[in-house]
């Protein structure tokens, strides 16, 4: 009986292990090839391991005048963190109003939000680009923070979360004389911490990994973000110095993977909770 059970799970194991290898092998390979010299990487057959690793790629990467990887990493992290904060500051109160307050125009406003979800964000790219250009916000952090801060998706999710907070707790606070802000700030928000963390991680990662908007709204080498910088890195050195490019890819991935290792439980749970995938 036990043997039969084990046998019946064999195809599942086989599939998961093969899939796992397909996922992990490319990552191991680009890591080991980032430690190769330009000659060694262009050898047939391709190798997954190098007997004489060289670290010069990781050093050179920071020396090239047209590459500012450390600065790009800072830009990406800072902009994503500021953006996440802005999303919370702007969307959480709005979500609370939709979740708990009664006001005229409630349904109309909510319908407008719902309707805009169907329209792809690319429609707003050109007008928003022209607006930030006229406001002289191109190539500053503002452009990476404000245009996307009214995040409709965040409002929907936060509203969902806030509605799950028991109403009785708020009613008790009303008897104690709490204002609307007090009910939101002291009761509903602290009780939604788990959900806020999950949402925050995905808002952060989505911004950290974004390519199009920072590509068109930044142009100085100092203001690029990592995804844009990596693209430029590939365009300039992809042909001749592949190990350098792969070292850049590893450098950009390490922070994300560290966050993943630390928050794996929250992230995995958060995907199902928020329906967001980090893109």
């Amino acid at each position, binding site marked *: 009986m036990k043997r039969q059970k084990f046998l*019946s799970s064999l195809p599942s*194991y086989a*599939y998961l292990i093969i899939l*796992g290898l*397909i*996922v*992990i092998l*490319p*990552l191991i390979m*680009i890591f080991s090839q980032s430690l190769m010299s330009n000659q060694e990487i*262009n050898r047939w057959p*391709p190798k997954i391991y190098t007997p004489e690793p060289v670290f010069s790629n990781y050093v050179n990467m920071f020396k090239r005048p047209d590459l500012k990887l450390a600065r790009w990493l800072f830009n990406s992290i800072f902009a994503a963190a500021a953006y996440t904060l802005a999303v919370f*500051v702007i969307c959480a109160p*709005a979500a609370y*109003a939709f979740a708990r307050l*009664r*006001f*005229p125009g*409630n349904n109309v*406003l909510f319908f*407008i939000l719902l309707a*805009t979800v*169907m329209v*792809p964000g*690319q*429609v*707003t790219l*050109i*007008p928003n680009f022209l*607006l930030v250009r006229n406001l002289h916000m191109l190539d500053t952090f503002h452009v990476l923070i404000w245009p*996307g801060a*009214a995040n*409709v998706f965040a*409002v929907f999710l936060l509203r969902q979360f806030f509605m799950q907070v028991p109403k009785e707790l708020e009613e008790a606070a009303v008897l104690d*004389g709490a204002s609307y*802000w*007090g009910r939101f*700030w002291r009761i509903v928000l602290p009780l939604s911490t788990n959900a806020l963390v999950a949402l925050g991680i995905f808002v952060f*990662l989505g911004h950290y990994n974004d*390519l*199009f908007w920072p590509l*068109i709204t930044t142009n100085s080498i100092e203001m690029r973000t*990592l*995804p844009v910088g*990596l*693209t430029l*890195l*590939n365009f300039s050195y992809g042909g001749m110095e592949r190990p350098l490019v792969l070292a850049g*890819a590893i450098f*950009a*991935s390490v922070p994300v*993977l560290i*966050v*993943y290792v630390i928050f794996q439980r929250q992230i*995995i749970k958060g*995907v*199902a909770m928020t*329906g967001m*995938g980090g*893109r």
Partner: protein
Amino acid sequence: MQKSESLSKTNTPKRFRMNLKTRETIAAYLFLSPFIILFSVFVIRATFYAIQMSFFDWTILRPFKPFVGLANYKELINDDVWWLALKNTLYFSIITVVGTSAVALAAALAINQPQVKGKEFFRVLLYMPSLLSVGVIGLTWVWLLNTQFGIVNYLLSFIGIRPINWLGDGKLVIPALSLTTIWWGFGFPMLIFLAGLQGIPEQLYEAARIDGARQGQIFWRITLPLLRPTLLFVTVTGFIAHFQVFGQPFIMTRGGPGRASYTVIFYLYEAAWRAFRMGYGSAIAVALAIIIIIFTLLQFRFIGRRVEY
């Protein structure tokens, strides 16, 4: 901070007496106002402005931007590059959605098997690529798919397949970009499927087993029908997301070879930020929006009906 002050003021009833309803309305709009301001500027205004711009010959370098009526749309209908981009995008989205859903569903079913151990490990491992940026994915896979030195061709050489020029062959470039995207993105639908599978009550399976149903029957008669809402969510959101593909062709092929991997957003980028034709770019964006809205509604009707039984 200002907000909390003004709200606590309205709570002191001595100076003005407002009824509860008015106070709640004022509070609600104060809570909403930062959102409404940014939303109006960057979403509502921008959407209408995009529509408006699509009726103008709007070039960033020229101060005079004449009204041209439907000329941009007429040009679009006769623009071979647009139709090619649309065809490529549709092809890419369909095979990516199908591939991603199949790989993800199989992985979710495998992990969900009660006998399988290490569920947490597999979930964490298989979701990992989804967290990487498209920049990383792009320059990794350009190299993995390299004709001469790439590991994909190396592995294929063991089964006697000669080196394939994945990204340089017009017929293969879209499937190659799709393969890359499936590798990158299957983890997200996998987790959604897992959540869906866990929502199916165990008693249904037990009852089926008592009735003598085989594994295949259980899958087709119980699991799949009950998973349809999840399947709907995964395919609709996946299709919409993949239809907006930009990073992969931008980084890996720059639309090439020739224009074989032009996608709609890639073409939008070329038109608006390379050729500076913002009016024409707006027409592309509006056309894209219309297609996505129609497709969303169609897909909901099509699968939505079948969810019911």
